[in-house]
């Protein structure tokens, strides 16, 4: 394992209330612990410890489904490796895109000869690294196609979907893509299903406190106590507006006001809902938030087919919540309902 001697100069782990050794080793040590705990599901590539794969990958005959992204979003990304989910994941430093090499190695690890779907989020670094990795993998004769998640309605106007970031909606994209591949879909079908999933998904986040990247050692940004940031990104990217802190019910209403008209979600449609904490918000409060989401959807004649509440896509120790809603059709419903077994999502 790589030694990290460089960044310790200004590092003082006593400046944070966190559980770390040298923060530069955090990702490597975390992965080491992770693969040990979850050895029934995942394995580290011997040639590249920054890539984790499903123990059965490449699954013969199946299209490979992978992703990758910066660390610090547990259980994303590596927690979604597993049966009927992802085949491999490239892990970057905290909040930083994995290397092109890791994406390429993840692609290779997932490929059974039927091509690989790379389902990732729309961030500048990820775009560039996936682009390079894809070129390399194609040089090696692997067919690679991509879907770029852009579910965060707050990150750009509807007219500029290419500027929108991917947030917790990626979980739905992985679930759907993973299920489609598991059911025998070919690469184009897997890509089409994952693309449909993300096209049918809208998210928005509310930030209530900053987060601290251990290697940086101080909060990443600042949210004034008594205020909240509507539309915050998963790394603390500034949101749409800063308001006085609202009640849980008002927060839910504000999020839905942004989400519902954007697709739009209409009376009569069925949806899947995901409420994810950003890391430090007590899970009990996510259920309070969900309660109002459900009330508003019901009042709008939108019926909830399935819902998820918990820490599904976090941002280190940030306080806050992301609301994600996916509009379902029959195909998406079947795919979202398929049983799966990953650390972050288990469905019987």
């Amino acid at each position, binding site marked *: 394992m*790589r030694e*990290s*001697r*460089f*960044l310790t*100069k*200004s590092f003082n782990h006593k400046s944070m209330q966190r559980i770390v050794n040298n923060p*530069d080793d955090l990702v490597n040590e975390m992965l080491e612990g992770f693969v040990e705990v979850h050895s029934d599901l995942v394995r580290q590539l011997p040639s590249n410890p920054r890539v984790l794969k499903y123990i059965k990958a490449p699954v013969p005959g199946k299209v490979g489904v992978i992703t990758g992204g*910066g660390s610090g979003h547990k259980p994303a990304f590596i927690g979604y490796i597993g049966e009927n989910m992802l085949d491999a994941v490239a892990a*970057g*430093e*905290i*909040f*930083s*895109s*994995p*290397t*092109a*090499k*890791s994406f390429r190695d993840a692609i290779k690890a997932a490929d059974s000869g039927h091509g690989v779907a790379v389902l990732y989020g729309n*961030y*500048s*670094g990820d775009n*560039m*690294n996936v*682009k*390079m990795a894809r070129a390399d993998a194609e040089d090696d004769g692997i067919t690679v196609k991509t879907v770029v998640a852009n579910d965060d309605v707050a*990150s*750009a106007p509807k007219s500029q979907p290419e*500027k929108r*970031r991917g947030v917790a909606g990626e979980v739905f994209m992985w679930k759907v893509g993973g299920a489609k591949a598991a059911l025998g879909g070919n690469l184009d079908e897997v890509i089409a299903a994952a693309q449909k999933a993300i096209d049918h998904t809208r998210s928005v986040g509310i930030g209530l406190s900053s987060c601290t*990247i251990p*290697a*940086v050692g101080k909060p*990443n940004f600042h949210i004034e106590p008594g205020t909240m940031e509507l539309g915050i*990104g998963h*790394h*603390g*990217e*500034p949101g749409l507006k800063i308001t006085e802190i609202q009640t849980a019910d008002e927060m839910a209403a504000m999020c839905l006001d942004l989400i519902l008209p954007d697709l739009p979600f209409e009376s009569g449609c069925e949806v899947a809902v995901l409420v994810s904490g950003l890391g430090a918000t007590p899970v009990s409060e996510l259920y309070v938030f969900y309660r109002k989401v459900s009330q508003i959807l019901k009042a709008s004649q939108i019926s909830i087919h399935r819902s998820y509440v918990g820490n599904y896509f976090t941002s280190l120790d940030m306080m806050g919540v992301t609301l994600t809603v996916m509009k379902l059709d029959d195909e998406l419903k079947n795919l979202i309902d398929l049983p799966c077994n990953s650390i972050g999502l288990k469905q019987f």
Partner: protein
Amino acid sequence: MQYFINSEGAVVLSLVIKSIQENKDYLGAVDGEIGDGDHGVNMNKGFSMAGERIEAQHGYSDACKIIAEALMDDIGGSMGPLYGSFFKTLWRQSRNLERIDAVEYLGMLKAATASVKEIGGAKVGDKTLVDTLEPACAAFEAEVISSSDFDSALAASIKAAGIGRDSTKEMIAQVGRSARLGERSRGVLDAGAASSFIIMESMHTAIRAILHG
């Protein structure tokens, strides 16, 4: 002199690495204003890892390749592909040269800058490292055309890089993490523009020192 010997030029990159290391906190602070504050950490890590791998027998091109690989294979983020392409191209363009003169260096710089624009999709005015690299490149070219002097072209490019970097202050970010800030990204430097100024300045100052010999 009007050229430097490739095989003796690794020291140039060692000085680049040293400057990045010395500016770790500064780059972190600049990135902290409208980014996520990790630019100093990322750059320091990648360049320091490369620094450990550069050995006595390496030349200028070798060192560029080592930096490129450290960034691309070990760092990731945005810096991996962006500066990785930059140094990879410097290597690719120079690897077969024994001596590097102003005209060759101009070709290298232009190709390297073009590769950054290609992978990242940014152009001048987008508030990125391109705002430092492109004017530095252009000033170098203008000076080579007018004076044919390597040393004064390097000096001109450092000056233009500084002006380019400072120009990002009044820009609204169009790509990368800070693009989301819109109007609020105005008023502070871009982190990548700041680090590429450090690279241009340290690299060109080091080459000038060799030319002065």
